[in-house]
């Protein structure tokens, strides 16, 4: 690595393209918005799954928690921008509570736990009827004084860039190394003096924090919330898909994966509306079976000379 880090250049270039696109037209701005949402989810999944090796099927849960916390605060007339941060924090607290139970156990319990919470959450909302309950809630009148798509985009962009920087820092930090060690051999990591439970819990909380922020910003922009959309398990699979496409455990992987995915989704939406979920589910299965290391893994094999410089 020289004075100018090629990895940082390539990531900055991707972000620059996104910003440029969003200024081009309103519809492109909407697309960039979706890209950034998925990108943050994918990057947050990357921390818990790509680095620490824990399969999480619950990014949608933390996303939804962010959505609902944001809504709850906003209808109680809290400043939306503060609510975004608080939404993320509450998601992180949920992750802490969940992690205390699930991360003590080995095996599939963590993945199952995250899935079960995601599936149960909408029932909790409908059953108790809080924040609009089953029928959802329109919050436009609460947020309209602050509403501006470019401000939403900007806050998303900041969050996403913060995540990228965080991931870069993590990869070369003691904490990041301990997560990688846990991924490769849990017991050996423990005997080396790594408090595996604590490290996993922290990683899980960071991951949930950013998913929650993404959810809160999403709610800000949509201004209409529904339990089945906020906690849609599809979002978890989107995060997994984009991370796998780009390459797990890398900085640029989730960003690249998301851009490819959203472009592809846009095309599918135009040609075969209603079949997207079907197509993406099949895509995930194919990638898991054929290229578990993702697109970057394939590229790495192809162009060995540049692999360390960019990825």
């Amino acid at each position, binding site marked *: 690595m020289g004075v100018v880090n090629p990895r940082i250049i390539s990531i900055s270039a991707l972000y620059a393209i996104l910003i440029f696109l969003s200024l081009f037209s309103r519809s492109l701005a909407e697309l960039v918005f979706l890209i950034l949402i998925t990108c943050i989810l994918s990057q947050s999944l990357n921390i818990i799954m790509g680095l620490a090796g824990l399969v999480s099927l619950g990014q949608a849960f933390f996303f939804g928690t962010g959505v609902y916390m944001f809504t709850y605060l906003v209808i109680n007339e809290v400043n939306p921008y503060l609510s975004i941060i608080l939404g993320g924090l509450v998601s992180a607290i949920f992750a802490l509570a969940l992690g205390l139970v699930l991360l003590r156990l080995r095996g599939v319990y963590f993945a199952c736990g995250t899935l079960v919470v995601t599936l149960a959450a909408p029932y909790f909302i409908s059953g108790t009827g809080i924040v609009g309950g089953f029928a959802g809630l329109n919050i436009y009148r609460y947020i309209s004084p602050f509403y501006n798509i470019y401000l939403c985009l900007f806050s998303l962009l900041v969050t996403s860039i913060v995540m990228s920087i965080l991931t870069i820092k993590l990869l070369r930090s003691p904490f990041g190394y301990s997560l990688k060690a846990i991924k490769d051999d849990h017991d*050996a990591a423990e005997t080396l003096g790594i408090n595996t439970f604590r490290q996993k819990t922290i990683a899980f909380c960071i991951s949930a924090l950013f998913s929650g922020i993404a959810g809160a910003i999403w709610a800000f922009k949509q201004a209409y919330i529904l339990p089945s959309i906020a906690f849609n398990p599809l979002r978890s699979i989107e995060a997994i898909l984009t991370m796998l496409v780009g390459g797990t455990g890398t900085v640029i992987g989730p960003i690249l994966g998301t851009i490819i995915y959203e472009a592809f989704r846009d095309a599918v939406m135009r040609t075969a509306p209603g079949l997207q979920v079907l197509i993406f589910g099949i895509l995930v299965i194919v990638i898991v079976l054929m290229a578990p290391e993702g697109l970057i893994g394939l590229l790495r094999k192809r162009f060995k000379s540049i692999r360390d410089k960019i990825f």
Partner: protein
Amino acid sequence: MSLLLVENVTKRFGGLLALNNVTLTVGEGEILGLIGPNGSGKTTLINVISGVYTPEYGRVIFKGTDITKTKSYQRSRLGIARTYQIVRVFPNLTVFENVLIGALNGRNYGKIVMNKAEERTEDIISLVGLSHVKDFPAKMLNVQDRKKVELARALATDPDLLMLDECLAGLTPSEIFEMLSIIRKIRDERGISIIMVEHIMHAVMNVSDRIVVLNEGKKIAEGTPKEISNDQKVAEVYFGDRELALKFVRRTQENA
């Protein structure tokens, strides 16, 4: 005062008594050989000392503090390191990263900056002689090198006590010779106490200051290598009843 004191430790797995009232000590800078037939409880003892198992009865005292109930990672931070019988390197990380993780954790946890840890890693990698493969993923190495990675990683945690669980098994004679010289160097240059679990008798006899023999979870002998090699009980455990063995030898000679 001894560095490690294992006092009356008893550990059972269901009906099996894996360790039966075992007491042993390890002095500072001492190499202790731990031998015994298969299933005699050697690895269980290592697991009790490193914190994988908690004994039903007895205490483990390290540097004067009782660590019987301390968690495994905390013991590492106190200065106990180990290797595994079946090598457990981090397969997808490079040799350098493997050792670096050791350097960042263990006793130096939270006290070492990245640059220092990297320097330390380089030192240890050259000590065990892996400099030429340090950027390779650990899964690409052969058995001997992987054992060395594990050793280096344990060493990087800056331990006072290092437990090597059959680190010579599966190596060729020349590799064993090299490993032994590394082990001796670790003790001589760094003053680290070592517990060696080993089956290769000439190696243990050669390198240990003192030897403890376990059989069916019980300590049956303890002493210098010389004393152990002349011990009646040890010979029985390894070769069966001496008289019976002699009788058998005689009979085969007669038949021939």
